[in-house]
């Protein structure tokens, strides 16, 4: 029998995982950041249950430091799918005194999101949060199970993960614990873009080349538009043709100089790229095991 193409095989695997999530958990949700991975994940979930509606709400952890295009896209998508949307605000966690805002030039709310995320999951009694993380993104993510257990403090224990054999997923847990599930674990950045191209999935305009006021810091371009990113005198603002390779919080999303106006251009650009997509993410550069350390605390 002819083997399926890699995109068909990956799609089928992800749909299978999403259905296992729906079947094995009481109140699952999808973590939606507005980035391409969570968009593809949401699209796959739509496919998995069609013609029934998405059986899970979308959860957005809002740092307040967004690209406006992300929110516009999010609201339009929720409307189109008839999905439920839950938003957790990092500002609320700051106002409640649960977290303290970082100070200085490189201040970011990225790390603070963990507290807001865990509070939002607890408040809505979500017992499984599906994320669009991929194993090829980062070396700690490369180690994570598809169904990944979190203790009652939301912590991941990378040294003692449950065995996960074949495609049999074990969702058993005690009260107060939850799971993270990663249906697109086995996709690469290239697979995601090829799939977006193949399926004609609409993306936020940020992913395509546009003119933007930018400045250079630590070897990468950052957006000069948001008022909450302080600049040093030496950091000169220029208008450039850029696009986002990944989208996160605006304070730590590096912009790529690019002339990619169509998905085909983006695929060509990525095929030729010599730097990983997270190479543009300041949050990963804080230490050698920055991602693992954040994940242990309950990060995405």
């Amino acid at each position, binding site marked *: *029998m*002819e*083997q*399926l*193409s*890699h995109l*068909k*095989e990956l*799609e*089928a*695997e992800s*749909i*299978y995982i999403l*259905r*296992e999530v729906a*079947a094995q958990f009481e109140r699952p949700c999808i973590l939606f950041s507005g980035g391409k991975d969570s968009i593809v994940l949401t699209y796959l979930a*739509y*496919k*998995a*249950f*069609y*013609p*029934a*509606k998405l059986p899970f709400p979308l959860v957005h952890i809002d740092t307040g430091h967004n690209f406006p295009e992300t929110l516009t896209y999010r609201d339009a998508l929720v409307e189109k799918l008839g999905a439920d949307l839950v938003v957790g605000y990092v500002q609320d966690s700051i106002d409640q005194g649960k977290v303290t805002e970082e100070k200085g030039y490189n201040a970011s709310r990225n790390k603070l999101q963990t507290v807001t995320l865990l509070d939002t999951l607890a408040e809505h009694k979500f017992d499984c949060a599906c994320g669009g993380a991929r*194993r*090829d993104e980062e*070396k*700690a993510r*490369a*180690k994570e199970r598809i169904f990944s257990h979190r203790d009652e403090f939301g912590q991941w224990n*990378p*040294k003692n*993960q449950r*065995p996960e*054999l*074949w*495609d*049999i997923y*074990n969702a*058993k*847990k*005690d009260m107060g614990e939850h799971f993270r599930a990663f249906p697109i*674990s*086995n996709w*690469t950045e*290239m697979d995601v873009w*090829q799939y977006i*191209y193949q399926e004609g999935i609409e993306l936020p305009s940020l992913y395509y080349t546009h003119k933007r006021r930018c400045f250079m810091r630590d070897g990468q371009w950052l957006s000069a538009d948001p008022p909450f990113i302080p600049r040093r005198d030496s950091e000169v603002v220029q208008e450039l043709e850029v696009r986002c390779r990944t989208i996160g919080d605006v304070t730590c999303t590096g912009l790529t100089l690019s002339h990619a106006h169509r998905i*085909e251009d983006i*695929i*060509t650009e990525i*095929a030729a*790229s*010599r*730097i*990983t997509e997270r*190479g543009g993410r300041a949050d990963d550069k804080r230490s*050698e*095991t920055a991602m*693992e350390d954040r994940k242990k605390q309950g990060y995405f």
Partner: protein
Amino acid sequence: MDNKGYLDMKLLRFSTAGSVDDGKSTLIGRLLYDSKSIFEDQMEEAEKASKSRGNEDLNLALLTDGLRAEREQGITIDVAYRYFATPKRKFIIADTPGHIQYTRNMVTGASTTDLAIILVDARHGVMEQTVRHSWLVSLLGIKEIVVCINKMDLVDFSEEVFDKIKAEYLAMAQSFCKAHISFIPISAKLGDNVVNPSANMPWYDGKALLEYLETVKIERSADEGFRMCVQWVDRPISPKWPDFRGYAGRICQGIVKVGDRIMVQPSGLSSTVTGIMIGEQSLEQAVCGQSVVITLSDDIDISRGDVITAADFRQPLDSSVVSLDVCWLRPEQLVLGKRYLIRHATQEVQGVVKEISYKVNISTMEKETGVTSLTMNDIARIVLKTAQPLVYENYQDNRTLGSLIFIDPGTNDTVGAGMIVNEEI
């Protein structure tokens, strides 16, 4: 560039196994590095990390050992998944740990693959972990094994050493291994026969590892009767779809076409396929590996855990007592008579181990009888009784319907992996 050709690539999933310090992570680092799949920032980071550890040369293992504890101890604890592609194939690598303590993670990594690379250190030859991993890979039904005899640079690239280890391995494996076995002499550290053919071993005329991986044929199960385990009943109950009732699952064997007669197991009810969908797309037929929604002509009772099968084909087996090869994964012992939760395909039932037929002694390769409990890393043949009958196939015929896991109801942990074998009970 023409992107369209790349939309239709095929995936090969493989794992690496072998004893501690046989150089698995280094081999993967080399494979990625020489096939230009390492990005500049990953390289810079590995270089920086190598220096800060006092490693003189670039330590390629740091490209895959991602956890803090792994980097500190210089070992692999858990399976790391890595991805790379050449113009011929896309690859998913499960880089698994060699320490006996982390065998559960090796099994996790190997269970989803079609091929296993087993590394052997040319200085040490076949070790106990080599035997254990070969046994596990064989139990897991992996049909292609490539034994990479590594660190050939430390034995002067000697053909004699290679031949001796090859003979030693074949002698060890012949009693249990049904896989097709290939041998490649390599130096992961220096790159000989990994991506590029070795100039140091002119006596070897076979393929370098990457070329082997790009060209090896993986046997897929032949066209057999359709089987699909129902994951989810799709009922929109919406104005547009008031009466729609579809059965969602991933096809684990054969082909299904609109108009086919099907049966449902264990009920034995039958019906006809009226539609096959993937999302909004309607299909005339779907094949093994695809996740679909199927609609039927009759409103019959079907729920999660049931198996939909081709009506005009041999039906799956059906019993509440099965014989299994089991690999125990946790220090908490397997206790005869204790109730475990058994997850089998999309079914969950309670089960009790009635009997341990024998345990395999990896050092002597003997089958020990009279054993009353199993502990971590034990491999054994057991008899399981379940509260409801399982609809199953033997593992060698169908991985999905032949595999199951043991969950300890006290800890919720996955404690054992079972593969159903054909044996008179």
